[in-house]
């Protein structure tokens, strides 16, 4: 068991992350680091999309930087970011007391469950680009959505069996609530009394939001994005056709799917995708994802 750190209320954004790490580590999760390819949500990390599939148990927690190019506001909106953090927990098979474990994590970050109003409000989750859906809830704390809670039913068009439970915490929003801050850039990134100096979220990320917003909306060359997308699309089946020690190269192929997906998001933010084309692009990414998912399940079941 880790030290009793979880008893103290976190004092900063990074402390909140460490508290969650401690908590989920104590429950038996492996604590992973972010995946090093740009993704739009923590779910897309191979630790969730791929590991949710197949018969093997898997319990993991990690922070995933998430990029939503279209959500950039040049650092001028107090709630919206094109780069933000999700805290992701995946438990397979979901333990019977998963809801209580989740509520325990809220308590660990300092929310008193008899003072606040916590609700599980129906919200069926789906992510069409990876052919995934599940049933669950948005979790509300005093009227604010603080997490998404999902029992995965399908990923990559395949049934998830045993069922994996997924928790996604929007870290900035949760931190703003816990610390009573109205502007994300005012969040204490580290301890306000840190001896080496205190930084806010804005000190760390404001300039990044400004530059990336400009690049997302005006900077990227659409023709280049399109070509890169098509390159990735072409490479995925080729990569899957290669194998090492009798196993098709699913993991590198899946990284390429992620890249294609991010390139699509960039094209979308640039306004380069007509309404009518959108569905077809999403379908193309989903098909690639399905190829990877099937190959992965085959390997998992053979092992």
């Amino acid at each position, binding site marked *: 068991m880790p030290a009793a750190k979880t008893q103290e209320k976190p004092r900063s954004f990074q402390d909140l992350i460490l508290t969650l790490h401690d908590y989920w580590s104590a429950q038996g999760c492996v604590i992973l680091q972010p995946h090093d390819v740009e993704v739009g949500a923590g779910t897309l990390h191979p630790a969730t999309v791929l590991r949710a599939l197949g018969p093997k148990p898997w319990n993991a927690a990690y922070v995933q930087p998430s990029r939503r190019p279209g959500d950039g506001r040049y650092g001028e909106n107090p*709630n919206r970011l094109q780069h933000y953090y999700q805290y992701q927990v995946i438990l397979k098979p979901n333990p019977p007391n998963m809801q209580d474990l989740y*509520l325990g994590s809220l308590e660990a970050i300092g929310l008193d469950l008899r003072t606040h109003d916590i609700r599980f409000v129906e919200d069926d989750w789906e992510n069409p680009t990876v052919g995934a859906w599940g049933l*669950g809830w948005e979790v509300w704390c005093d009227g604010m959505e603080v997490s998404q809670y999902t029992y995965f039913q399908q990923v990559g068009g395949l049934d998830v069996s045993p*069922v994996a439970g997924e928790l996604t915490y929007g870290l900035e929003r949760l931190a703003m609530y816990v610390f009573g801050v109205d502007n994300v850039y005012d969040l204490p990134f580290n301890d306000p009394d840190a001896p080496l100096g205190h930084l806010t979220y804005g000190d760390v990320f404001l300039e990044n939001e400004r530059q990336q917003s400009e690049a997302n909306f005006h900077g990227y060359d659409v023709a280049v994005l399109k070509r890169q997308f098509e390159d990735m699309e072409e490479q995925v089946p080729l990569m899957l056709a290669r194998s090492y020690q009798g196993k098709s190269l699913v993991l590198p192929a899946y990284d390429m799917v992620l890249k294609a997906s991010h390139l699509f998001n960039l094209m979308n933010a640039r306004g380069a995708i007509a309404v009518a084309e959108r569905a077809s692009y999403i379908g193309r990414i989903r098909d690639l994802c399905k190829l990877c998912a099937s190959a992965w399940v085959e390997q998992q079941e053979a092992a």
Partner: protein
Amino acid sequence: MPQLLLELFSEEIPARMQAGAARDLERMAREHLAAAGFLPEALKTFAGPRRLTLVVEGLPIAQADRKEELKGPRVGAPPQAMEGFLRKAGLTQDQLVERDGVWMAFIEKTGRPTTEIVAEMVEAIIRGFPWPKSMTWGTSKLRWVRPLKRILCVFDREVVPFAIEGIEAGDITEGHRFMRVGFGWGGQPFKARDFDEYAKGLLEHFVVLDVEERKARILEGCKTLCFARNLELVEDLGLLEEVAGLAEWPTPVLGDMDPAFLDLPGEVIRTSMRTHQKYFAVRDPATGGLAPHFITIANVQSADGGAVIAAGNAKVLSSRLSDARFFWDEDVKVGFEPWLEKLNGVTFHAKLGTMAQRVERIVALAGEIAPLVGADVAKAKEAARLAKADLASQMVGEFPELQGLMGGYYARAAGLDPEIADAIRDHYKPQGPSDAVPTAPLSVAVALADKLDTLVGFFAIDEKPTGSKDPYALRRAALGVIRILLTGVRIPLSDPLAIAWLRTQAAHEVRQPVPTAPGIITKRTIGISVYPDSEFSGEVDPVAQAQLDQAVAELLTFFADRLKVTLKDQGKRHDLVDAVFALGDDDLVRIVARVEALDGFLKTDDGKNLLAGYKRASNILKAEEKKGWKGEGEAELLPNASEPEVALHDALRLVRQPLADALKAEDFTAAMQELAGLRGPVDAFLDGVFVNSDVAAERDSRLKTLAAVRDAMGQVADFSLIGG
């Protein structure tokens, strides 16, 4: 008699599914118990955020023993037949008894214990429950709406022993998810062996079982909060139902809203509160306007009286309303023309083109309807052109239910003609049975054009409603048209339907209606001649005209069906609508006036008898017409005509002019009174005259007289379609 108590305890059930689940549980339990031969004294179900509960009073402890008689083969039947029968009955031949030359088996079946039947019933209910969406969890193979955690099942105060996929039935349930007696949080388990213990235990553990009780507590709590601050609750039954499904211990908490937001339209504030946050709005009784507060229904009663909850929710609401303010400001800046541009890129339906194309059709149709309803043509076209623009606004993107309404606000903000702004606002109306019907001529023109275009479009691509499926809400559209027209708007419905059809057909690939003998015959040669200024003026070939007639007839039949439903709700007979529609009229106001007069007439003695006479006459005529009789020319009295023949002739002659006058004046009650004058002579004729005389001239004269009766009555309604 013993009682059965069942509770299926799960993780949070979506609020919108709870009421249906309670009904399904009740139905399934009733069916299973009835199939086992039980007739319980009382059966009740409850549904809430985490539990479905069933209580059945007055079940016996076992089924009654039953005696069954089975009829076997005849005495002397082939041995195979006997063997088969014995196998089926599970008996040997010496156990059979001979009766009237047939072998009979008398089997006594011992009734099974109720607990066995209950165990089977619960398993069947769980495995077959019709959740709108269900899921699996962990390694279980079970499906439920969310993970099923516990089964409490007691009969006659004893646990019914069974297990389903590892979940064992017991006598334990648990209380509120957070609230408990003493320190800490979390559901406390407790034991219940019957319903009284169960209901009492739940209350002690902060759970209100009955949704009606939860709703009552919410309303009462809201009103108490309002009273203390001299506020008034904005009641919202849909929201009440929903929040009662989100809390086991519903606790209203009043929070404050920044009054600066009150300059937003009230509907925007209320919609944001309701759809995003599930809050009730409150009014200031002095002004009738919204007050800067809200009420949220919390699931916990917190030690600080809800202060933290109120503050947290207030913050969320502020950020929601800031978004709404942002949308408003942006929308006012952008305005109508760029939105209309955007509608070019919005698909209305794959087969019916873009929203911009739809707007063009509505503009044309509104312009054509305008003169018929007393609206200015240019204004009607302009209102129709702008009516759909707000679909591209940010606010409507966020709150689709504010379509139209926002367009109206934005039109006023842009300084447009208030009549046009109102027409934009009201053109979707009436939406539901309680929604107001537009009456301003301009609004009527656009509202009719909008709905008729929808109906014609979807009929043209063969997307008519079937059974309970009506994905494009065409029934509601037709009903909307009917309600608007019945405020006294007189238009021949065929004309706009025909032109809308031609216009849809010109722009899109539509089905070709196959002309059949239509239920409703359109009165006029429609379309073309009516709108000489339209792009469809000129000659049409007969095939196209026949298809158009058929298309319009199908649409009118659809209207007739909706009208029947409307009139049936008012207690009118549906066959009267058929009888009147069969005349080929397409003016709903006149049709309803006829139906009402007819309804009144058929309730009188004269009416009933005349209808009976009509039926006799028309049966005779039908039989003769089948044999080839053609009644050409007027009926002429023969010199030797009998007294009843003369009397009927006189009556028919006398009724002709007044009947025509009454119909022309659309005084249908008077027309019915004229017909009533025929009753006596018709009865006397049918009773006293032998129609099928051997003398051909006599027969012909008498048949023609009956035909004249049929024709006279036929001007008022097609009496052959009226049931006896």
